[in-house]
């Protein structure tokens, strides 16, 4: 077994008095694809956001690529530039062209010269299948295209880890596939990925491990085979039967 690139030990998070994440332990190896699923409000987003400190965890330990997340600004900056994140609502920057969306972070954070950043950006845009949209603005693209730009934007920083928070749930059915294809290709290329999703087809195809969250806890985890064919917990069974019935 190789070196774990993400180590979470007993991670807790409260919102006011509400205990949203109630002690998560997780280790992710380099190149692994981990899928997290569970009912709404179970703390999936909150947990995944603690990993790049969009939320601050209040107990436990998170170590990414050997660096522990503390209040230390340098660590936070270092970790964030190693992790790419893709959101449900795309969150592209509407005032910038697609190309500028993608090159912004490399230019300002990695300090690449603009030319290099643009070359890399075009490469990545080609990889996600939309090189011809580079000069457009996000408002002019379809949802699926926007989400692919968002993935490209994250990839442009050449991150070691990618986090996805329900990347397809705001999309129309015909666009879901184009985004999942890109993600599958990414997984195949050896990227370490943490994906919150309910696309079980995707999970079955590429996940190394799956975690089922409920009420801020990991109820069950295992390989897709374990989870789909042989779930141990009643809650898992119930939830799977609900989402697979669609």
């Amino acid at each position, binding site marked *: 077994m190789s070196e774990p690139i993400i180590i979470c030990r007993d991670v807790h998070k409260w919102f006011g008095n509400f205990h949203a994440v109630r002690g998560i332990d997780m280790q992710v190896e380099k190149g692994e694809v981990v899928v997290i699923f569970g009912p709404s409000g179970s703390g999936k987003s909150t947990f995944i956001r603690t990993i*790049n400190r969009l939320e601050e965890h209040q107990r436990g330990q998170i170590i990414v690529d050997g660096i522990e997340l503390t209040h230390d600004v340098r660590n936070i900056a270092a970790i*964030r530039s190693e992790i790419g994140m893709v959101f449900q609502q795309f969150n592209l920057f509407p005032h910038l*062209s697609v190309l500028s969306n993608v090159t912004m972070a490399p230019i*300002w*954070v990695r300090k690449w010269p603009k030319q290099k950043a643009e070359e890399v950006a075009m490469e990545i845009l080609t990889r996600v299948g939309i090189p011809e949209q580079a000069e457009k603005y996000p408002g002019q693209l379809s949802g699926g295209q926007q989400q692919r730009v968002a993935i490209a934007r*994250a990839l442009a920083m050449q991150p070691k880890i990618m986090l996805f928070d329900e990347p397809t749930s705001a999309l129309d059915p015909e666009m879901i596939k184009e985004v999942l294809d890109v993600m599958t290709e990414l997984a195949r290329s050896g990227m370490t990925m943490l994906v919150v999703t309910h696309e079980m087809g995707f999970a079955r195809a590429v996940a190394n491990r799956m975690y089922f969250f409920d009420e801020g806890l990991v109820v069950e985890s295992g390989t897709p085979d374990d989870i789909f064919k042989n779930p141990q917990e009643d809650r898992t069974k119930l939830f799977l039967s609900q989402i697979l019935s669609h």
Partner: protein
Amino acid sequence: MSAEIKAHPGMEKPPTTSVGVLGWLHQNLFSSLLNSVLTLISAGILYLLGRGLVKWALTEARWGVITSNIKVLAWGRYPNEEAWRLGISLLIILAMGLLTWALRRGSLTQNARRALLTVWVLSPVAIVILIHGITLPTIATITNNLGYYIYRPELMPLLGEAWRASAALLVLAFVAGLTCGSVSKRTERLLSLAPLLALFLFTLPLGLLANGSLFGFDLPRLLPQTFALLVGFFSGMTVGRALTSIAAIRWLRIGSWVAVLPGLLILLTTFDVGVESVAPVEVLQIIEPNIWSGMMLTILLAVVSIVASFPIGVLLALGRRSSLPVVKGFSVLFIEVVRGVPLITILFMAQVMLPLFLPLELTVDRVIRAMVGMTLFTAAYLAEIVRGGLQAVRNEQVEAARALGLSEMLVTGLIVLPQALRAVIPPIMGQFVSIFKDTTLVTIVGLLDLLAVGQSVIKQREFLGAVREVYLFAGVFYFVISYAMSVASRRLERQLGVTEES
């Protein structure tokens, strides 16, 4: 509605009462009894007013008060023979506006954008220099002054100026040390010492002259300067070494030289030692702000407070939304107090109270004080407008930017502000219109803006009591500019509305 597209075969022409002149009259003026009555009343009022006005304007009004005083109204006490400077400034402003307008339409290339930004930053400086005039120190002034400052500080006309020499040396040596410590090549290191060296080469002869002989240095007198030199240089060197690894060190170096040199010049040459031959050369005749008057003052007041209030307003808006309670509290207090009182009280304060808060030896020109007052006033209003824009930027945008690893500063500068400002262009333009109109209030505190000059030309023998003419003229002047600004803003708003969403 797209009548053409929807038109179908067999369509008939509408009845004449709904189209054409008759239809127009019917629909717009006489569609009902009440409407007809209103039409008649309005027409009556319009006729009476219009007739009176036209008759007065054509026969009674003494427009001579405007025509023969047009120069006075335009630039007041500014010397006529220097008025070309105002013309050029105006041209610069116009050109800038046109350029911006023209470039806005196409999507800007990076270079065009940068050029535009440079123009925007540099042109105010150029205008200020043009209008105010400038004296430039010659080599002779510099060496002369530096020589005295360094070797005979006690000869300075105003006691207490001697520290300038030490302070200047300290800073200069620090920057030189910083450079020396952070560059790698040997030649570059030597080069970084050049300014210090030059300083001595230039001033040594004078130092010698001042002290009578080569060996007549009065060491105790030189002690502070020597001390400053050594401390500055070595601390600079240490810092420079420590920072070598930082990526931005190159910019830091260039920046510090750029920042320090003019500062040193000011520090060391503002007071000349009274020797005619080495006085700074007046390249452009200096025309003190308190001479600025008329339309020119009006426009300057408006432009300066608009340009200067913008960054302050943005900072205040950011401060108000800051998570740091102290900063937030300060911003809220400032914004609310300024917005709660009339502009005239702020101007009054700038005129009579501000000087009390400054050291006695520091006097700030009245016009400058008014500019400061108006700037702070506008800044508070702008801050509230910008805050509205900031609120319109969704938090997800911030999160996305943070997740990319951008620092908080970059998140604000690259993501939040551009979106926020774009959203509030129309109200900002509205604020600019209102500040332009508000410049008239300086009349009350005794500045000679267009309105005040207008009031004083009515005192001329032959135009006594030509009150209406002058105020009408002023009114038209303000109206034309304000209205143009509102129209431009409306158009901008429409354009933005079209491009932003899709």
